[in-house]
């Protein structure tokens, strides 16, 4: 009896909080479908208004939205794919190969986590500016082709795999590439998926880096593009439609890969 009552209370509390947490998203979605410069009246009356895709049409026609989405895809998908690949390969190298200086190299790379990314921006800016790569994709891709946290994930994962796996394969004459791509990669699928989901969200949502490295509208990714819409006077409907555009890919990632996110976060929490 007692526990049933508390469980009901906890469900009610959770539901109230869940509604509170969803409200901003509901405001965004409904707002995006209403032709309204300023959100007038209480949000519940909005739904009674005519819903339309006017705002979406408007920004596709009147801004570089499609280009921004394309830019975001380029600077997200390339680093994500490479980060997954390098996490796999380097995770293997750092967990399974024995060579001099291996641990030293790994820990120097790991130590850089303690360096806030903001400190790297100015020197990188000067570097890229000197070469003439500002306002291109390169500054948004090249520094991000691998990520030490992803390598760390895979390394820890592979350390748990039994040694017999590779030893048997070595005896059969397999080389590292066979072992890595034939045996290790299929086993590491889920940890690689975790690395990929994190990389995707981080690159897609990044704001400061592209804010600095892109200077013309045609090169903006969607975050900077959306920010350029959030002007002082503003237009509620249009801004919410822009937000929805930026939100959809991350929402889809989240929908399909939720368990990889939670797994990744829990992993960093425990180790």
């Amino acid at each position: 009896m007692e526990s049933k009552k508390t469980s009901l209370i906890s469900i009610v509390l959770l539901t109230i909080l869940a509604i509170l947490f969803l409200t901003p998203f509901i405001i965004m979605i409904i707002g995006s479908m209403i032709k309204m410069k300023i959100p007038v009246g209480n949000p519940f009356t909005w739904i009674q208004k005519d819903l339309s895709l006017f705002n979406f049409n408007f920004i596709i026609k009147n801004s570089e939205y499609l280009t921004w989405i394309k830019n975001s895809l380029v600077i997200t998908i390339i680093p994500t794919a490479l980060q997954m690949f390098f996490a796999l390969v380097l995770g293997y190298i750092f967990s399974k190969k024995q060579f001099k200086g291996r641990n030293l190299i790994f820990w120097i790379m790991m130590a850089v986590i303690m360096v806030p990314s903001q400190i790297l921006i100015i020197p990188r800016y000067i570097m890229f500016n000197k070469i003439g790569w500002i306002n291109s994709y390169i500054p948004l891709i090249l520094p991000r082709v691998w990520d030490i946290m992803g390598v760390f994930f895979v390394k820890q994962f592979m350390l748990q795999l039994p040694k017999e796996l590779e030893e048997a394969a070595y005896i059969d004459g397999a080389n590292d590439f066979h072992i890595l791509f034939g045996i290790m990669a299929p086993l590491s699928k889920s940890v690689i998926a975790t690395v990929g989901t994190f990389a995707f969200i981080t690159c897609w949502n990044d704001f400061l880096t592209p804010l600095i490295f892109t200077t013309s509208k045609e090169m903006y990714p969607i975050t900077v593009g959306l920010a350029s819409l959030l002007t002082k006077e503003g237009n509620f409907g249009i801004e919410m439609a822009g937000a929805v555009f930026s939100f959809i890919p991350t929402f889809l990632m989240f929908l399909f890969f939720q368990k990889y996110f939670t797994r990744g976060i829990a992993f960093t929490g425990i180790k």
Partner: protein
Amino acid sequence: MKVNSGCKPDKGKKPPMAEKAKKHLSKYGIVYLFLIPVMVQFIIFYLIPIIFSFVLTFTDWSIVGTPKFNGLSNWKRLFNDAIAWKSIKNTVKFSIYYIVPTMALGLFLAVMIFAQKKKVGTFFKGIFFLPVVTSFVVISGIWKWIFMGSEQGIINQVLTFLGLNTQLFLASSKQALLVLASLSVFKVVGSTMIYYFAGLNGISEEVYEAAKIDGAGKWRIFSRITFPLLTPIHFYVAIVTTIGSFQIFDSAFLLTNGGPNFSTNTIVFYMYKQGFSSLRFGYASVLAYVLFVIILLLSLIQKKVIREDLD
């Protein structure tokens, strides 16, 4: 190898050498092929910038022209710059506004969800985690309208409807930082919840069983057993959220532009302004190093405590 074979042409020795090299390559080829390019990338994009950034703190440079060394004057400037100190103060204030609610709410959600059936729990976890994957820009875009200081703001409309006074929110130098903190709590609490959830998973059933046999009530079990057993998680979450809070930039840039009256001028925001609006790269690097030192100290505390915890 080359020197050896060049000085002493020895036919008998060459094949084993080549054999050895081949064997070496087959064993370490993968290391050369992938680790070396990554190390080069690491040196160019991490190590050199870190050092370069430090050198920059002793120069006066605005991208055009040549950098001039000016000794310690950027560092001296920091100590006399009231706005820089205000930005540090604001960032610390922001951390305080943000850390305790994030931890408390994250723990609350985790405990509540932990008590549910798996399917129900996963559903709720999903909802609270949604803001974590959503960008600061999207959430700022929504927050802008919710907390707009004029009568057009969504909350102000609700307040008017209820017959209450409207608030200035983002337009108030007293409230703006709190609004930014609320945005960050909303965005981050889902990951705090997951950390705590993992922590709760790590506590063995037997501990609870024993307590139940002793007749302890729910609250007592929580305050005497669950909460203290989560100490490593409390610590980890506290450090991770603090580090994150010191890097706050996006919402300050998008919603308040550091204002009103510098009340949301945070360290990273000020660094951005000094570097990319005023083109004072030297001074901006000093600010970046201030941030670096703070985060380094926090990370070292974290490393030390976690290590003790593991031992």
